């Protein structure tokens, strides 16, 4: 989409060099997203004109145009004929976009964004645990039970524990059958999974505590206790976050 096809059509997929402008555009976009989220270009302000950006980034106009188009798709700017590219208000930003969410989290008040993320995640996952307790069949229960047992053995291996942890949560989400709720949680998760601020320090004690939470959730689902499963999930997500959280400010919004 970035430029005209130079080389003759290959039978499969385009040769490597055609990818370059897209990758450049992506790095330029990442930088501009960060500036906008950080408030260097505040809402309502006009982005520097094309030639200035070309100079700034040392890239072609095509790349800048592509980047601005990507910013537009993310809801960060509006291109108005005559008045240039205007930064939009944060309520129109696509917060589920990895660049936008990533930039928001690394901000000074990023921990508040993570609090909000936890509030969002826990209410959806609690509801999915509720449904799972009503509908989960024997295979699902067996899978969940096996994952919890395995995690007991993996408390010293942060990476393997993490994989099982995600799989435990995903099994419950899949069992609930709510594809939209699962998509929201997964997209939130995938974007913060790599930020140290969310994941926290690898510690055995934290894994032990976290798996106690998993076991309680599993038991409530196995007992077909929807209310209990929802509460166990809610508590697990909240507590696991509070021990990792640290950071400034009072987690007032996590209260309930």
């Amino acid at each position, binding site marked *: 989409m970035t430029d005209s096809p130079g080389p003759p*059509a290959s039978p499969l997929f385009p040769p490597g060099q055609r990818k370059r402008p897209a990758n450049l555009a992506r790095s330029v976009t990442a930088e501009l997203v960060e500036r906008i989220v950080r408030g260097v270009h505040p809402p309502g302000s006009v982005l520097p004109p094309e030639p200035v950006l070309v100079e700034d980034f040392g890239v072609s106009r095509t790349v800048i145009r592509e980047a601005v188009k990507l910013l537009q798709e993310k809801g960060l700017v509006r*291109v108005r*004929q005559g008045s240039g590219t205007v930064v939009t208000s944060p309520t129109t930003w696509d917060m589920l976009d990895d660049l936008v969410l990533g930039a928001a989290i690394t901000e000074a008040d990023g921990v508040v964004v993570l609090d909000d993320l936890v509030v969002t995640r826990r209410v959806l996952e609690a509801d999915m645990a509720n449904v799972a307790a009503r509908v989960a069949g024997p295979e699902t229960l067996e899978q969940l039970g096996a994952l919890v047992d395995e995690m007991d053995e993996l408390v010293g291996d942060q990476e393997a524990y993490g994989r099982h942890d995600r799989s435990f949560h995903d099994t419950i989400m899949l069992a609930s059958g709510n594809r939209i*709720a699962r998509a*929201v949680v997964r997209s939130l998760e995938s974007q913060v999974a790599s930020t140290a601020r969310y994941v926290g320090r690898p510690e055995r004690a934290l894994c032990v505590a976290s798996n106690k939470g998993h076991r309680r959730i599993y038991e409530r689902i196995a007992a077909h206790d929807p209310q209990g499963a929802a509460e166990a999930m809610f508590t697990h997500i909240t507590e696991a976050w509070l021990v990792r959280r640290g950071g400034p400010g009072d987690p007032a919004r996590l209260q309930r």
Partner: protein
Amino acid sequence: MTAQPNAFDLPPRRRAERLSVAVVTELVELIVTGQLAEGALLPPEGPLSDHFGVSRTVIREAAKRLEEKGLLIISQGRGTQVAQSGSWNMLDPIVLSALIDNDESLGVLDELTVVRGNLEAAMAGTVAGLRTAEELTRIEHALQVMREMQHESDSFRQADVVFHLTVMELSRNRLAENITKRLYRRALESNRYQGMTYEGAFSSTLDQHAVVVDAIARQDIPAAEQAMRDHIIGSWQRRRFAPLHPDTAS
């Protein structure tokens, strides 16, 4: 898609882009509705480009976009395969629209409403816990506007949306607000979501909103959560299962 000041070098590219968007939309639709089944191989580029009447470049571009949305797995040599639905990005605007357009068979509006109900409930709870006196006044005002509009269905619907947006905004949870608004907006675009109504819908909406406002006024967090959730999920279920009712709005 937006007009650029200097259009000289644009026409050919924009045409290709538009074609590509049309192909993307149609392919998404075919996959979401199961006409191209999960795990199935996509027909080769040649036949596809004949079918859509576009160049192979456009087909390739479209396939790449679908790969980004998690709908296709492109592998050199083994061809292009439709991905399992578990890996589809359901929140992608084009995917979500295709799901909603085919809701009758896919039931995605039920799922979307549950998500909305849960998130708005959490936000209403936060507002109950943190609201100031002025913020309560804003919410009460939004409810008052609805009361005044209850005999004009278009204005009433608008006031209804404003009420929900006000509560979300006051929650200060930008993330939940943003996600909910996106889903809500998509749902509102759907005739199936909008068009259905039931006897006494307006007065029952007003009553339920009043319960939410009352809980927020009393700073009763669980009651605010419960009232908002019951309202959103309950009214969708009533609309959904109600016999089709002649709708006064378009």
